[in-house]
Each structure stands twice: as C-alpha cells, then as structure tokens.
C-alpha cells in the first residue's frame, strides 16, 4: 500500500469504499464466528456509568466524531473468493439509541435491554459491528452501553475510544474545539500486520514458540475436560477487599514485581493444585501492540499467549513470582505471533485441542474518564468468547479494591463450580498476601475451611470400637455354637461345622509340629477344594499366616515367591505341585500324611495369637520386575469382616460361593466371612470361575445367595449365562475394577431383586476400604463409595493437601485396615506407607496411586491411575513387571508394555520389543514365566520406539497390534463361512480368514466365552470353551461341528477327518510321537477346499486298547483304516517325526498289496538306524512331545499339569486335552520310541519328498540321505529354516503346503 493509497478519502457520492484484507488477529475472529454464525459469543460490551449531568445531544455528537475517527468501527466484513475482506465505509449512521428510563427499576430495565442486545449475533456482512445505547436511569445518572464485535475492537481499543469520546465531549461542552485526532488508520493496522508477517521477526517468533512448547503438557483443565465453544458464558463477580489488595501491592514491590505478576502466580498455583500438575500453561491476553504508533490505533490487535510455569510444592511464592516476571517478559518479546498460528504449528488445529488452561486477564487500563468533569466508571459486560475459564481482573482505582470476574464456559462450570473456584482463589490470594513469600508453596491449601472439614472429618466419621478377634477365633466360636450346621459344600458332599473344624484342627496341629506359629508363614498351594478351605483354616488356627500360591502359576514364579517369603512349611495336595524349596511339605493326598492327621487331636489348638500378628501374605505385581508380598494382620482383616457382616447381614441360610482364586484377596472374605456367621460356603469347581454357564449352573444347583464378580466377568456373565437360573442370589459384590454404569444397569434389568454392591480396595488395605450400594435409576460413574469402619480416605493434591469435593487428587488410605507393609522390603514399605498428616499422632497412610475425587454427598469416585499399574479383568499388574520380563529375553533390546483399549470395552495387554527377538517366540516365553493375566495378547516388534520431542518414550504413539491371519483364503461351505463371520463379529477384527486362530487375533478368555455361546445360539452346535482351545480356527471348528463324528471325543479316534470333503485324492497324514494328528489342521486348510486330508492317530487315545507290538503291526492297522476311506490307490501319504517312519512303512505295505503310492512325503523323519545307537533326545518324553506338538520347547514344565498350564496360557489348542488322554500319551511316546528302534525298514519303490528342519541341532548326524537304502527313487529334499517342533507352525506350513501342492496337483492360491 502506498502512502497515497492509504490516505485516500472517499466521497459519499461515489460510495467507493476501500477494501482491505483482514489482519491475522481479525481473521482469527472471523473464522471463530464463521464456525457458528448464530453465536453472539464474539460480542464484547461495556457499560459506563456517568453520575452527573449529561447532554445527550452533545454526547451523540461526540460519538459521531469518534466513530468517524475510528475507521476500524466502520467496516462491513464480507467473504470473497480470495477470503474475507473488510470494506471501509465512508460514512455510517451512528447506531445510537437513547432511552429515558427514569422511573421504577430503571437500571434493571436498562440491564435487561443490554443483555438482550449482547445476546444478539451480528452479521458483519450486513450490519455495523457496533452498537451504542444511552440510558437515562435517573435525572443525573446515565448508562452508556457499547457493544462492539471482537473482530474489530479489543479491550485496549475500548479505552482509546472511551477516553477520546470523553475528551471530545468535554471540549464540546466547553464550546471549544477538541484536540486534533490522533487515531491511526485501519489501513495502517493492516499494513503493519502484513509487514510483521513477512519479517524476520515473524520467523524468529515462530521458532521461539515452537521450541518453547514442543514438549508441552496437556492444557490444564479445572473442569477436568474440554467442551465445545459455548454461545454464552457464566460470570461471577467478586471484589478483593482494599486491605488485601494493598498488601498484595506491597508484597509485589518486595518481590520486585507488579501486582498483576502476583495474581498470575496465584492463578498458576491454584491451577496446578486443582489439576494435579506442576507444568502449567496459562493463557495471557496481551495487547500485541509493539511501538508507540501501534498504541494509537483502535482496532483488534490483542493476542492470547501461552505462559508456561513450573509450580512445585517445594518452590516459594518468591521464586514463582520471579518465574512469572521472567516468563511474561519473554512472552512480551514474541507477543505478536498469533495464538491460532502457534496452535497450527503445534498441530492442534482441527481437533480443537487446547493449548492453554485458564486465561488470566489483568486489565490495568486507566479508565479515568470524565465527561465535562463528570466521572464515568466502566463495567465490563463481556470480554469475548470463553472456551474454558477466564479470570478478568480490574483495578479501576475506585476504592473498592480489585474487581475479579470469573467467566466460565457454562458447559464446564455450572454456577456453584464457578463460585467455588472464585472463592477459593480469593482465599488463596488472602493467604498469599499475608504470608512469608519464602515459605514453600506446599504449605498452602486450596480447599476452604468448610471444605476441609467436610472431606477430612465429616466424610471419615467411621470410628467404631470392636472386639479384638482374629481369623481363627470367630470360626471356632461358631463351630461351638452350631456344630451340626452345614459349613461347606463341594459338589455332592457337605461338611458340618464340627467336621470342618475337626479337620482343620488336625492339620493345624501338624503344621504347628512343623513350626507354624504366630509370626510364621505357611504356604498353601491347592486347587479349589474342601482341602483348600481346610488348609487355610488350619494355618489360621495354628497362629501362622497363610501364603496362598496359585497352582496355575509358572514354576519359576512359585519358586521366587517361596524363596522370598521363606515359609516354615508348605501345604499342597501332591508332589510336584510346588517346586522344591528346602522346607517341609505336607501333601494332603499322601496316605502317610492322612495317617499323621488321623493321629492328631481334633480340638482347637492353643496358640498365642493376637490381632497384631500377620494373617496372610499375598503377592502383587512389582513395577521393577519382582513381585512383592503384602502382609495383612488379623486386626486389619477382622475389621473388614466385622464391617461386612454389620452392613450385609449374612444369615445361617445364606450360601456364599467360593470362586475367586486364593491368590486374589477377595477370596479371603469368601473363605472366612460365611464361616464365622454360620452360613454355608459353596466351593465351585476349579476353573469354573471363567465359564459363565458353569457358574450359573453352580449357583442354581446350590442355591447360592452371595457371590463376587470382577466387573468385566460380570458383564460376560450377564451376557452369556442364563440369569433366570440365579434366582437364589440375594447380593452380588463387585470389586477389582471400575464398575461401568451400563453393567450396573444391565444387572438391574437381569436380576432386579438382587443387590449389587461396588467395593474398592487395594491388597494393601485388607481387601476393601470403600463401599457403595448401586441404585438402579442412577446415572453417571458408579462411585466406589464411602469408607468402611475405622478407615479414613484422603484425596490429596500434589502438596499433600486435601482436595475440595469435585477436585481430582490421589487417593490415600488410613486406619485399621492398612497392611503392615511389604515382606522384606523396608524401603518400599516406607515410601508407600507414609506418615499421615491428618490422623492421630504417629498414624500412617497408604498411597494408592489411584486418582479420585469426593462428591458433595460424601462418596468417592474413582478416576484412573497416576502411574503404570493397570487392572486387566480385575487382576492387578505392573506394566513394569511385564516390561522387565520381556527385556530379560534373548534378542530383546528394549521393551515396553501397554494396556490398549482400541475398541471400547475390550482391553488388551500388548508388549513391544526392539531387537531381533521374534514376537511370537517372546510371547511364548512369557507364557512360561508369568501368570496368565500378565501374558500379553500380542507382542509387536518395532525397529525403534517412538519418542516425544524431549526424547522420552511416546506411549501414545505405539501402534495398535494388527491381528491378522496368514494366507487369507475365502471360507467355503456354509459352516466355515458362518464361523468365520462369528469370529470377526466377536473379535471385532476385519479380514478374518478361516485359518486364523482365535487367540492370535486378540481373543481373550472373556471373548472365548462369548464366541462359544454365539456358536451355540446361531449354529445350534454344542461347543465348550475347551473345544475352542482344541480347534481355534473357523476351519477347525467347522470340522468339529459339522461331522457328527468330530465331536470332542472322536477327535481322538484313529481316523481324524481334518477335511472330509473335496474331489481330489485324499492325503493321509500320520501322527508324530504323541500320537495325535491335530497338528496337521493348518496344513489341511492351506491345501485348499478341494483336497481331503485325513489324519491317522495312535490307537488307544480314547480307550485302553493295547498298543501295537511293532510299527509294522501299527502300520497294518492304519492301512485298514486308509482303505476304508479310499479302497484303492494311488495313495498319498505324509508323516512327521515317527509318523514319517510309519508313513514309509504303510507305503511299503500298500505296495506289497499291489496298490500304487502316488506321494510319500516325510517331515523331518529319519529311519530307525539313525536312532538305534542314540538315546533320541529329540523325542525326549511325553511332556516334551506334547509341547512340541504345540510348537514349544520344553523348559521348566515338570508334569502334565504344568504342560497344560503352559498351553493354556499361550492359548494353544492342545490345552483341552483330558488327563486320560495325556496319560495315554505318556505311554504312547516311549512306546513309539522303542518300537522305532526295533524296526527294520523295507524298501519303498518310488520318490520321496523330504522336508528338513534345517536349523542347527545337537543331533547333527540326522540326514535325509539316510533314507537312500530304503527308497528306490528320487529323494527330493526341501530345507526349512526352523527347528523340528516348529515345522508345522503357521510361519512354515505355507512353504510345505506350496511344495505339496505341486505334487498333489491342486491349484495355487
């Protein structure tokens, strides 16, 4: 723009108007308005009260002149193809209305008019962006209202306009000429803006802001969340008393700062405490005007800049104010760079993500305006849109101290909340003004005295005197009172109180002989059973504390816990249940033990037990990789059980279900509560806690009245089980996870007569410390409730000060139920169980790490974690422990773990590794080391971990695991199609193929239950969860459910139709050492829909038929089966391991009978003489064989229970094998090994297709060439880069199928 152009005047005749682009500041406002054209939020307004005489006519004239001088006001803003433009109008009619409202409630009526006008959205393309109104509310009192759209004017601009208006008016009133105009022109504003945007300063400012905010924290939100821009705002006005205002000014001087700096510091402190963060970003509206010229132009220039401050409890007010001073100085240097541009540079636009928290708008403009000597006092009506919270502070120097307006987005701050924030802020200012600025900020509390009293005292009035009993005493008293009542039911058997007590007493004596006594530990490792109950009671009676060791845990973990806890002895059912640990084991299945027990007296044993002694030790996940034992005293758990009885009143006709594993502290009340109240404990079958149908059956069968569910299991139970069978229930308890409101509603619909109680508590506080009775009609999050007896709950901010109700903080627990601490971990104990600042002298409190807040009704709501501890289906695990386990694996460089909820409601534990380790192998290795709930559903291998700009791990950027199958062929047949669709539906994964395994697609045991019931519903096919383990693919399940003969039992017959249909010549696949041919299922599906595949399995898997006395005999039996399917050749044969040897033998037998053999394929099978001289480590033993069939190498499994546990944890199909079958395999494997050594090979006439597992192995003498003497044809060898057990795994089966396909002449896919 040339100087000439900017000075162009327009004449009214031509009406030619100057058209200018918008400045960046104006554009920001334009786009904001365009988002919601009907919103009046961008109107700003002010009202000046003029107390004295005023000449309305002169006033109007003054306004007219000022309007002419202020070009920014006289614009139409229009959208054009090049973007929005402002058209400077040469002259406008002054939009001033004058109202004589003298009379009743004049000011009220004026205010109503102003409110209405303010609420009217302006269309800037058609109307003027400003409005004036003058109200005469008394003879000598006038209200001047002006409303200007924020696009054309900012707060500083208002002050220029008002002062000029007063100046002109005053001059006119004297009959003099007003001083010459000084306002700059609109075009100048536009030009300055353009100049800045193309300057080096612009580039420097951009770089500054990017650097300053690159690793910014989340914008602090006092309301805890964001909301959409609102059309209105709520406002609370308060005045800081003059005395305090003065003290603040003095304090500011002492700190070499200004009072606005102190106010900003106070807001930063308030925000930090209410949001629980130390890295706080406030919004600082600044004039944005640099240079004196800029100060002369009324217009929209202001900008909001982020002011980032670190507020720690250890800081002082002095240091915080210094930070503010330096921070603001720094911000001012770069204040011209627009807020919208900063957000765009940081990638925050479009998602509406916030950059700053509350705005602190300190307006020190001197509004001393006088209209011909008559003073005018300004009152702001609106400063523009309020996204979240804006604190406007005015020093109008009118003797009333500072005026403070809290403007809040009504969607986030209802009236009471806004009022509460304001009154707390004022109290904080008062405290700061009167205190020593060198004391730590941690000394200040944000809650008001009333709020403090409420959350610390009123909500925690739970003191109750209780008798000093233990776990043993009350049971023994009850047994005395009602000896004949039924104490225990398991399946069809029942035990009376007297009988149970006697059995427990005998065992208690034996334990005491082994050293059990108060202060000692006894480990107990038993599956759920009567014996488990007896054992726990016995330990309590002996005076010792029990340490439950879940039999399903990996041996390594059990060994660690035994070593760490050092119990004096252990109770188990059989040998091998627990690893050797050098201490006596009492094995209840052992006849010797039973004899000893019979010899013990049946009366209560004496013991010097007090409530202070430990009652139990339970291990929980440790964040650095080592689990830790929590020691809970009798006094603590007794408090919990007495409170429970008083609140829920069990009667003698109640039946409580024992279903929770003993390693989970919920089980403690299942075991000990009913038995002290004369009720009955019903012991559920082991494993049934995972199967909703079985649970419902148990509840129905035993008329259970009381039971516990982890909320995610309750959800599955309500969805999958028949709730109508559970009419006997009176009450259900939920704990372990947050209880979703939808689940509570579903429960109320399904079981309307049954009470649902939500309880909360960590292992470190005797099971549960809070309780809430669910009310069906309520909405919102289900609270965890109020504290139990003799318990105090504290929600504390980062300075360990109590949070007011509604404000989130960390939950701390105090009182009688606190655990003693962590076994052998004094350091850890002292950092988690710390001094209690609010309780009796010397009291402790436990830091839960849970985020929570008090409601005004005195209940606590749970809001998440502060760290990396997670709950997965109610089980607590430290991500750190999973990470440590991953990192310890070979080939893993770095590891991290995460619980992901990519689909709402479905939580998956996912591990991430860098390095060379193969993810599937890592996962399998973890299945060996960690309990089931800690094994990730997937491990994802990354080249490198994603990092934040400051080099920290960016967990948010870790990719979701992609669950997808291998070759994805289309399903064929209606069953396969239906099943594939069901898989996709239940797993919510796209692109599921019929060969994809359920557990590889992210399936969990919860989803398994869902799938099974859908299959039952939709296909009418009876399926158990076990059969899903056996055949985890849609193809596999299709086979099982289609063929009547393929029901679970017949999957173990000699002939196993892996694919019964198809037009081609069948392929017969002979079992490996374990005798089972399921391993060929994957191969079968890859060979295509038209290729029948039949497995041949060892005889006697199902029954006890004798094993063949030679491989020849065995092969002959197979030939018969073969011919029953295919009477004549050409035959196609395949075998893995010993199956290969058998296949070769079958081939020779068929040739003897004159039949043609079209294909003989051997998978890493070697002739007898290669084994005769060697002990055949390859075939180890049954356990190894079974594991190998599943693709695992055996490491620490000691018996078939361990093997099953490993298989189950890894989601292997073979986990469904029954004990009988496994026992048969135990016999079959050595049988094969021996028969093979005795075997003499005959000669086969034809070619051999051989697959070698070419990974290096100790048995380096094995070679396919050893078949040479026994094969009269070509030997075609294919090498695969894997080990023997890995041959039939997903990764390699495809390659084998490809080779076979050529020989079988099936089309390639």
């Amino acid at each position, binding site marked *: 723009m040339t100087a000439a152009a900017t000075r162009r005047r327009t004449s009214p005749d031509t009406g030619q108007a100057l058209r200018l682009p918008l400045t960046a500041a104006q554009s920001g406002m334009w786009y904001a308005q365009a988002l919601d054209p009907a919103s009046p939020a961008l109107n700003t307004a002010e009202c000046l009260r003029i107390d004295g005489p005023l000449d309305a006519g002169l006033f109007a004239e003054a306004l007219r002149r000022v309007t002419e001088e202020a070009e920014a006001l006289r614009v139409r803003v229009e959208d054009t193809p090049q973007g929005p433009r402002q058209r400077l109008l040469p002259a406008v009619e002054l939009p001033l209305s004058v109202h004589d409202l003298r009379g009743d409630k004049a000011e009220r009526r004026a205010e109503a008019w102003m409110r209405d006008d303010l609420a009217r959205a302006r269309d800037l393309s058609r109307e003027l962006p400003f409005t004036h109104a003058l109200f005469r509310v008394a003879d000598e009192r006038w209200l001047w209202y002006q409303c200007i759209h924020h696009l054309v004017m900012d707060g500083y601009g208002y002050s220029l306009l008002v002062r000029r208006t007063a100046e002109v008016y005053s001059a006119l009133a004297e009959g003099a000429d007003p001083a010459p105009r000084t306002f700059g022109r609109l075009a100048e504003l536009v030009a300055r803006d353009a100049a800045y945007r193309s300057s080096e300063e612009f580039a420097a400012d951009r770089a500054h802001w990017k650097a300053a905010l690159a690793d910014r924290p989340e914008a602090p939100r006092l309301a805890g969340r964001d909301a959409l821009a609102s059309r209105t705002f709520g406002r609370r006005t308060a005045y800081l008393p003059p005395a305090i205002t003065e003290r603040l000014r003095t304090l500011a001087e002492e700190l070499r700062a200004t009072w606005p700096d102190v106010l900003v510091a106070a807001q930063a402190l308030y925000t930090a405490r209410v949001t629980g963060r130390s890295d706080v970003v406030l919004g600082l509206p600044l004039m944005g005007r640099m240079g004196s010229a800029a100060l002369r132009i009324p217009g929209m220039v202001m900008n909001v800049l982020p002011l980032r401050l670190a507020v*720690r409890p*250890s800081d002082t007010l002095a240091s915080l104010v210094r930070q503010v001073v330096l921070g603001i100085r720094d911000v001012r240097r770069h204040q011209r760079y627009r807020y919208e541009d900063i957000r765009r540079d940081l990638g925050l636009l479009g998602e509406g993500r916030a950059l700053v928290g509350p705005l602190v708008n300190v307006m020190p403009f001197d509004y001393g305006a006088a209209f011909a000597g008559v003073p005018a006092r300004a009152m702001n009506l609106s400063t523009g849109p309020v996204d979240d919270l804006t604190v406007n502070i005015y020093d109008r120097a009118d003797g009333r101290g500072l005026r403070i307006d809290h403007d809040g987005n009504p969607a986030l701050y209802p009236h009471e909340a806004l009022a509460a924030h304001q009154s707390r802020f004022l109290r904080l200012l008062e405290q700061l003004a009167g205190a020593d600025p060198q004391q730590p900020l941690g000394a200040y509390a944000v809650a008001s005295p009333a709020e403090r009293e409420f959350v610390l005292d009123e909500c925690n009035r739970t003191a109750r005197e209780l008798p000093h009993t233990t776990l043993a005493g009350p049971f023994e008293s009850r047994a005395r009172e009602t000896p004949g009542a039924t104490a225990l039911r398991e399946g069809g058997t029942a035990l009376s109180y007297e009988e149970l007590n006697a059995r427990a007493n005998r065992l208690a004596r034996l334990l005491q002989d082994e050293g059990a006594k108060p202060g000692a530990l006894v480990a107990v490792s038993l599956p759920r059973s009567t014996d488990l109950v007896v054992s726990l009671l016995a330990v309590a009676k002996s005076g010792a504390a029990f340490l439950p060791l879940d039999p399903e845990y990996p041996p390594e973990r059990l060994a660690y816990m035994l070593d760490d806890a050092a119990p004096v002895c252990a109770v188990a059912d059989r040998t091998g249940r627990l690893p050797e640990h050098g201490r006596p084991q009492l094995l209840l299945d052992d006849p010797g033990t039973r004899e000893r027990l019979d010899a013990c007296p049946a009366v209560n044993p004496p013991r010097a037990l007090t409530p202070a002694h430990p009652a139990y030790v339970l291990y929980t996940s440790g964040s650095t990789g080592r689990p830790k034992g929590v020691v809970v005293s009798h006094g603590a758990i007794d408090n919990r059980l007495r409170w429970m009885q008083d609140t829920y009143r069990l009667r003698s006709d109640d039946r409580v279900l024992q279903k929770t594993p003993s390693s989970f502290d919920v089980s403690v009340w299942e075991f000990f509560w009913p038995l002290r109240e004369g009720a009955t404990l019903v012991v559920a079958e082991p494993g049934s806690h995972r199967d909703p149908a079985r649970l419902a059956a148990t509840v129905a069968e035993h008329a259970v009245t009381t039971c516990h569910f982890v909320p995610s299991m309750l959800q599955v139970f309500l969805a999958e089980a028949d709730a109508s069978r559970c009419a006997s229930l009176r009450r259900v308890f939920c704990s372990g996870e947050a209880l979703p409101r939808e689940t509570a509603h579903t429960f109320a619909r399904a079981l309307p007569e049954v009470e649902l109680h939500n309880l909360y508590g960590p292992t470190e506080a005797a099971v549960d410390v809070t309780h809430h009775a669910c009310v069906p009609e309520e909405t919102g999050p289900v609270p965890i409730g109020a504290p139990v007896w003799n318990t105090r709950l504290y929600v504390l901010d980062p300075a360990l000060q109590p949070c007011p109700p509604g404000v989130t903080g960390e939950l701390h627990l105090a009182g009688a139920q606190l655990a003693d601490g962590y076994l052998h971990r*004094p350091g850890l104990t002292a950092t988690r169980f710390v001094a209690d600042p609010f309780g*009796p002298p*010397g009291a402790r409190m436990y830091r839960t790490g849970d985020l929570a807040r008090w409601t005004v009704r005195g209940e606590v709501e749970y809001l998440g974690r*502060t760290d990396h501890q997670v709950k997965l289906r109610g089980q607590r695990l430290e991500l750190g422990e999973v990470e440590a386990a991953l990192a310890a694996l070979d080939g893993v460089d770095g590891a991290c773990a995460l619980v992901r909820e990519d689909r709402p409601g479905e939580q998956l534990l996912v591990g991430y590794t860098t390095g060379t380790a193969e993810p599937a192998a890592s996962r399998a290795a973890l299945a060996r080391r960690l309990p089931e709930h800690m094994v990730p559903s997937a491990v994802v291998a990354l080249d490198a971990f994603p990092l934040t700009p400051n080099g920290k791990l960016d967990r948010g950027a870790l990719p979701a695991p992609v669950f997808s199958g291998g070759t994805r062929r289309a399903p064929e047949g209606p069953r396969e199609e239906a099943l594939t669709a069901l898989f996709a539906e239940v797993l919510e994964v796209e692109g599921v193929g019929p060969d994809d395994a359920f557990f590889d697609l992210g399936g969990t045991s919860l989803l398994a239950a869902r799938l099974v019931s859908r299959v039952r519903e939709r296909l009418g096919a009876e399926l158990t969860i076990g059969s899903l383990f056996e055949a985890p693919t849609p193809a596999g399940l299709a086979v099982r459910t289609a063929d009547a003969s393929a029901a679970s039992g017949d999957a173990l017959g000699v002939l196993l139709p892996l694919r019964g249909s198809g037009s081609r010549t069948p392929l017969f696949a002979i079992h490996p050492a374990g005798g089972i041919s399921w391993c060929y299922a994957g191969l079968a599906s890859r060979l295509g829909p038209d290729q029948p595949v039949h497995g041949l399995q060892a005889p006697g898997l199902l029954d006890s038929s004798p094993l063949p006395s030679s491989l020849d005999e065995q092969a002959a039996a197979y030939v018969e089966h073969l011919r029953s399917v295919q009477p004549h050749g050409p035959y196609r044969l395949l075998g893995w391991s010993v199956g290969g040897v058998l296949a070769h033998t079958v081939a020779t037998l068929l040739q003897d009978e004159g039949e043609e053999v079209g294909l003989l394929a051997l998978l890493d099978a070697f002739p007898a003489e290669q084994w005769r001289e060697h002990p055949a480590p390859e075939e180890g033993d049954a356990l190894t064989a079974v594991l190998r069939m599943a693709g695992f190498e055996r490491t620490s499994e000691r018996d078939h229970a361990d093997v099953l546990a490993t298989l189950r944890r890894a989601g292997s199909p073979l986990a469904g094998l029954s004990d009988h079958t496994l026992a048969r395999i135990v016999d079959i494997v050595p049988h094969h090994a021996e028969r093979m050594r005795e075997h003499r090979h005959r000669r086969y006439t034809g070619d051999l297709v051989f697959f070698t597992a070419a990974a290096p192995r100790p048995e380096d003498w094995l070679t396919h060439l050893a078949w040479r003497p026994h094969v009269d044809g070509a030997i075609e060898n294919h090498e695969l880069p894997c080990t023997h057990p890995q041959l039939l795994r997903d990764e390699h089966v495809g390659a084998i199928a490809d080779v076979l396909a050529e020989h079988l002449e099936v089309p390639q896919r």
Partner: protein
Amino acid sequence: MTATEPGPFDPPADGRDDAFLVLVNSAGDHSLWPDWRAVPQGWRRSFGPDTHGECLRRLSAR
C-alpha cells in the same frame, strides 16, 4: 502425580535436587517424607534433609 510428572514421594525430574526426610514414629515405623511439608504429629525426623536416593538407601538398609 501423573504418568509423566513425579509426585511428592518420587525422585524429582532431572536437574532438580529436592530434599527428602526419613521420619520415624514411636512404633518404629519409618516413612519417606518431602521436606517442604510439615512433619505430621507423632513423627519425628530421623534423617535428612538429603536426596531421594540417599533417604531410600537408609530406609532399605534395615
């Protein structure tokens, strides 16, 4: 207090050397404690102020 910021009992973020105490009560319980917070009734200072690491060492070696 969050997954990204240290809380009152955590070692401070890099660069700061906040002070911690070891407290003990009459029952012999020990507690880590931040220096900037008043010592609760019934507890007394038995070590510190010193670094987080040093206080932990004292607490663990019992």
